[in-house]
């Protein structure tokens, strides 16, 4: 469970501040995401946790007025350096959103293959294999293997979300960002996704934003608590939930506010 102490640091935010115009929504956050761990980001609505997540694959700068100061290091290299192409970067840092977003004009197969094809993988046999691998990892293969050519919209909400995870996994990213991935799912679907987090961290580094404290406690190795644009506290999940050092953290996890 515990990563080795010398684990290569996959992802690290260094004094990261995210702004909309002049308004800072994430203030001076430094945070480490060790390789092959799940880190949960918790906090009340509007505390900047989603924006923080979107800084990690340079999606924030696509929002109207969005910009960033500070650095984000992926394998030691700053992803905000001048020569980094954000489009290439996003192929290394996959993302899954709150609501399932399958491409409605594409089949199940084409949805998963989309990220591969845009990367230039054209050989049909390779794509076939990669699609099957991604669907198996997302625990969706058995449910859809007989109808890969059908529209992705025919799937249930939970299946669509797992399809989106498969789509994000297919190009073999190094990091997976999950932005409240179970917010629109029923308990069974939620459980599937949480099991997935456990299985996937052997291959990926995972950051999950969640409103659900129990979920954070269940899936994560580390937990970071955001409040009013600040990172209040970060630590091992079992430590943070049992003996938080900050008063605000304790108030939040015991349900006194937020």
């Amino acid at each position, binding site marked *: 469970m515990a990563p080795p102490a010398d684990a290569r640091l996959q992802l690290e935010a260094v004094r990261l501040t995210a702004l909309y115009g002049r308004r800072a929504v994430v203030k001076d956050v430094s945070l480490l995401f060790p390789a092959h761990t799940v880190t949960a980001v918790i906090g009340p609505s509007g505390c900047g946790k989603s924006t923080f997540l979107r800084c990690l694959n340079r999606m924030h700068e696509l929002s109207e007025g969005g910009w960033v100061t500070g650095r984000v290091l992926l394998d030691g290299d700053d992803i905000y350096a001048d020569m980094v192409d954000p489009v290439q970067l996003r192929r290394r840092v*996959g993302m899954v959103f709150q609501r399932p977003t399958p491409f409605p004009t594409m089949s199940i197969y084409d949805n998963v293959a989309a990220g591969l094809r845009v990367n230039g993988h054209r050989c049909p046999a390779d794509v076939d294999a990669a699609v099957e691998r991604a669907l198996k990892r997302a625990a969706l293969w058995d449910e859809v293997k007989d109808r890969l050519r059908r529209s992705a919209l025919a799937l249930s909400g939970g299946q669509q979300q797992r399809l989106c995870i498969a789509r994000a996994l297919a190009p073999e990213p190094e990091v997976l960002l999950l932005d409240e991935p179970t917010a629109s799912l029923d308990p069974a679907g939620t459980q599937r996704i949480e099991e997935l987090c456990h299985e996937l961290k052997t291959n990926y580094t995972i950051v999950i934003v969640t409103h659900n404290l129990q979920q954070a406690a269940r899936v994560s190795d580390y937990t970071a608590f955001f409040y009013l644009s600040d990172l209040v506290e970060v630590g091992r999940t079992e430590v943070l939930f049992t003996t938080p050092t900050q008063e605000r953290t304790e108030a939040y996890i015991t349900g006194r506010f937020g």
Partner: protein
Amino acid sequence: MNARRVRRRVVNGMMTGLVGVLSFLAVLALVLILGNLVVKGGSSLDWNFFVKNPVPAGESGGGVANAIVGTGIIVGLACLIGLPVGIGAGLYLAEFGSGRLGWIVRFVADVLNGTPSIVVGIFAWTWLVKPMGHFSALAGSVALAILMVPMLARTTEEMVRLVPHSLREAALALGYPRWRTSLRIVARTALAGIVTSSLVGVARIAGGLVLLLAVAARSAIRQGPPHGAAR
């Protein structure tokens, strides 16, 4: 209690009847005109009507073949010019049109949209017919394309805007470049709507053929089809 129910029924019946009578009146004129057309005109509709050219006024026989072919050529050519420009402009407005240039394009499109077609006809006459020295199908097509572009641009923009923002973000997060997101994901999702608005656009300019009296007409009787209509 019972009286109230009876009253409701009576009022309901009266209103339904009233609406029915009004609807009947509204379609009566249409039905009469259409009926008259079918009864009186049906006898002259035969194969020749579609494949023969008109004959000089006063003689019997002849058809409207040149008009049909001419309409096809002119509308087809107008689509060739107008569809790519209009749809492209609409896609631009929806995807990248938040800046100053987008505002200008939108404003121009709205002004053009409200311009009477005869003005466009005169424009085409001044810039195409006069320099070329004769009426032409090309001039007509250009005029129609000009009519088509602003409407198509605005309706395409509306259709593309209906595509949820989350879909765009999903594509971008997957490593799609901006332009491929627009074409492969957004435009394809909005395709049905774009096709619909294109058809409406074509229908509108086909109806607006009248303005061709100014630029492409006069082939009706003297010249022979099909190239006569197009010359």
